[in-house]
């Protein structure tokens, strides 16, 4: 990737479109955006995200940025992180936020849903052990709440603990007194999301992209 010379560009777009589910038009827009972020480079690095001033205000900005460099989110079963990504990876990560095509069959829809959930799950599970441990959970809750002046860390911790216990009681019906609920596995994570139409919520339009703006 990265070799998006103008000659091959259209072909590449077509190719990427079939693989990621974006329309060529959207890919063109996103590519322009990508170029803009990388200052016409081929590779996107973490510090490129710093330009986006709006992202500064996002409490989970580091998690979001990390998600772009997380191999688990790319196609294939990679692990660990990379330091820079090309346009294709960028697109793949973006494709988690495609709206659901209403024409999908139930099965496709389900796998689409699973993909999205996996993406979210990976944002919690930073150490990639397949479990959201209580520390990881606490961290996320703390970050989420961090912008509020009214809740301090101790309380964030309590919320996370309560939530954790909730999952434990939801997921493991009978637990021996000494048993230790190690963390939320992906199955449990899916269970939590049961009944919530994530495919209806977790999407970005990818239209009207203002590729050159760094949102102020």
């Amino acid at each position, binding site marked *: 990737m990265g070799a998006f010379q103008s000659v091959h560009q259209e072909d590449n777009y077509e190719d990427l479109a079939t693989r990621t589910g974006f329309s060529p038009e959207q890919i063109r827009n*996103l590519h322009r955006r990508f170029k*803009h*972020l990388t200052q016409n480079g081929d590779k996107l690095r973490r510090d490129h*995200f710093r330009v*986006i001033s*709006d*992202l500064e*205000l*996002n*409490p*989970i*900005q580091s*998690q*979001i940025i990390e998600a772009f460099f997380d191999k688990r989110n790319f196609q294939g079963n990679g692990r660990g992180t990379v330091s820079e990504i090309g346009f294709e990876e960028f697109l793949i990560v*973006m494709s988690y*936020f495609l*709206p659901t095509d*209403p024409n999908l069959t139930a099965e496709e829809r389900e796998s689409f849903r699973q993909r999205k959930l996996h993406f*979210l799950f990976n*944002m*919690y599970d930073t150490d990639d052990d397949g479990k959201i441990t*209580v520390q990881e959970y606490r961290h*996320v809750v703390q970050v989420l709440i961090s*912008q*509020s002046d*009214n*809740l301090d860390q*101790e*309380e964030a*911790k*309590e*919320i996370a*603990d*309560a*939530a954790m*216990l*909730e*999952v434990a009681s*939801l997921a493991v*019906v*009978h637990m*021996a*007194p*000494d*048993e*230790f609920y190690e963390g939320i596995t992906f199955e449990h994570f899916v269970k*939590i999301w049961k*009944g919530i139409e*994530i495919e*209806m*919520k*977790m*999407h*970005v*339009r*990818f239209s*009207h992209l*203002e590729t*050159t703006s760094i*949102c102020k």
Partner: protein
Amino acid sequence: MDDSISCKCNWTSKYLVCLVIFLSGALWSSRDVLSNAAGATTKAPPVNSPAWTQVSPKPQTQPLPVFTINYPRIQVPFEITLWILLASFAKIGFNMYHKITIWIPESCLLISVGLVVGGIMYAVHGMPPAVLTSNVFFLYMLPPIVLDSSYFMPTRPFFENVGTVLWFAVVGTLWNSLGIGVSLYGVCQIEALGLKDINLQENLLFASIISAVDPVAVLAVFEDISINEQLYIVVFGECLFNDAVTVALYNILSFVATMPEVETVDVFLGMARFVVVGLGGLFFGFLFGFAAAFTTRFTAHVREIEPFFVFMFSYLAYLVAELFSLSSIMAIVTCALTMKYYVEENVAQRSCTTIRHVVKMLGTMSETLIFFFLGVATITTDHEWNWGYILFTLLFAFVWRALGVFVLTQIINPFRTIPFNFKDQFGLAYGGLRGAICFALVFLLPQNITCRNLFITATIVVILFTVFIQGISIRPLVECMKVRRTNRKLGTINVEIHKRLMEHTIAGIEDICGQWSHYYWKDKFKKFNDRVLRKILIRDNRAESSIVALYKKLELQNALELLGPAPSDLSAAPSLMDLQTKRNFPASDLRNMHELLSKNMYKIRQRTVEYTKKSALPNDSKVREILIRRHISIRHSFRVGSFPRTGVSKRHRFLSLPPRKNMESRSPPSRPSYTSENLLRAPIIFRHGTWIPVATLDLLILCSSIVLSAAELNNTIKQIIFRSRLFSTLFGFVRSASYTLPPGLASLDNAEGPGLEDKQSWKMTLHPCSGSRGTDLELEPLSATSSVSQLQRFSSRQERPLQNRYHQPERREHELGQQTSREPIAEGLWGQPQRDSWTAHRYSRSRDEHRPGGGNLPPSAPTGWAQEPLIQKGGGSQNHLNRRPHWRPHNPHGPQSPGQVD
């Protein structure tokens, strides 16, 4: 069970019938109740008419009348009151047996009752009551309805779908008006119908009336079956804004209809006027909305009248817009949307609740009355029946609605992320019920319209048809078609967290790819809001802080409740198992937590509370008076070593309390404690101009492990409540003392199983509301507004020692007696240094220890109650705003370690 219900229903219906007859009898003499009403509010009541006066023609010979009746004096308000009562009773009647309202919309039932009443009136004197023949509807009945809808508009979904909503409301209404009007005009050309005299303008006017949708019933159904959010909000928003469009259109057309001939210029002038009317309404809405927000900035010291501003300013917006013949509905909608956010941050929690309730109440009442009058008017109006015209009206109303929805959806769908599918379109089209606005508008038709009566008849038929047929059938149809639904039930705390993470992620991704969606504009606005608007409109030291503090408190307790029912070890306590496996936290608890989370996470793209029931009162569960907390030791025993807890000491376990240091530094001085026996015998003393029952109203710590079983405890609590109520009645210093036994507590009566047999102690805290009436109390719903504010269960592994040490009633009483008789309170008492007395015994002990030395314990502090800042008199209210909840961990080591004092 069913028998009893039906019995009740029978009884209710009999009662209602009697009432209806009585009320109609009382009302029949007055034909123009409502038309008088307008005058009555401005003019003096009508002068005595000869028929009713008891004053004789020769007053000098008349002795002083012992008994007189002066009905005309009270006639108008009296009759209005009776009408409202009648309608309300009808409403009560239907809701007694709620299965009726599931299958038959309430509006249908109200119309039916109206029909009955109308029939009776018709039979009695054959004269129709003049219903809504004047401005009453527009000046008094419409504003509450619109205010209700707009104040409870689910803001976030609305702004997400604002384009579609406006598209349907504006273009859809125009489409319907034009379509129906023109096709009816075509029908009128048919010789056979004999309607040649209805011209195009009149047809258009009629069509504009008939195209206002008012799907109250549909919204109730959608709400009930939790239809997908997009459809719901479009129907909701459409009905709100299309009222505005219709009224504007109506005003223009009713002017046009009276013109002898219409030229092209007039058409363009009409369009221009349409725009001006809308924008003008918008302008005044903003103006008064901001004015209201700005005013509430300064109402911190006049909490009593705070809610008033909301109503007055929105009404003012409405009236001023009306003054300039602008869209008054638009004005009030904008006003409500604008001010809501700021006002709710400025006003006290209680005022906020009041506002919501009153808005809801007025709106519901207006709506009820209108549907009720609709029924009455159906019977008592002079009708002009023309089969052709009426049937064609029905047909066109339906066809153009369906067509309009279909065509408009095709146009808007490419712009929507989630397009409306066919089923959604069906719901949208079929949900186009006609209602109050049509009814009112048609009665406002000027008398010089030729076919006024025909229009009235046709409108009523359309309303009745849509409300009855479509209103009743939409539920089965929508259920049958499986229109997409959204799971709107409150999820778990996990879901809340995950959802929020997802939302922030989406926001972040949008930023990264430079998406210009409404998020972008929302961001823009948010920043402008934070930078400018908030600074102007919101008080710095605003009530929110205390509300948030309350949320925090609630949330923490809820979190504890969630922590409580650990899944393990359930078999040990069978009676608890039912309780826990069902995970039956009251929905209000969860909601509180949700609200807390939604208020505190990611301020930039804040989420609003998802839905507000149109048909029900807003959730006011923020103010919870009693919170129960689970036994820490149970949790511990459930989770011994099962849950890594770092950095939290055992003492703090049950607490998600503020850390100890906070408590020491911020919370007020200690509270006295009593065993249950003492508190029931606590004397009342008179101090500082206030009657204060020592102990009872200040603070109670009940150690149930010592003396009480759970049942006894309940009893005790009830007695206390009763006492405090009594006091409040007598002396008025306790504002409200209410008490409900939480479900968990009730079920603990028999929870003496193995899991619970270990020590329980109960702590209950009563806060008196002090003699300083009013001003400071609102901000402390948990503590100040409720005398029973916390009910806590404690763990005490040291039960035995506690039992031995604490249970010394004789001594306690002795002391109390001494103190009350002997010690006048010292002024300096209010500012006494903090003291830490955990229990009665502890306190008395330490007192004894300290007294000889005259140490840090004031000899004049009898029980510590006086140091409770809540009853601080004349103190600044700011203290109360920022005061932290009184978390007082039950320190089991207390009695043994006096060294911890201070």
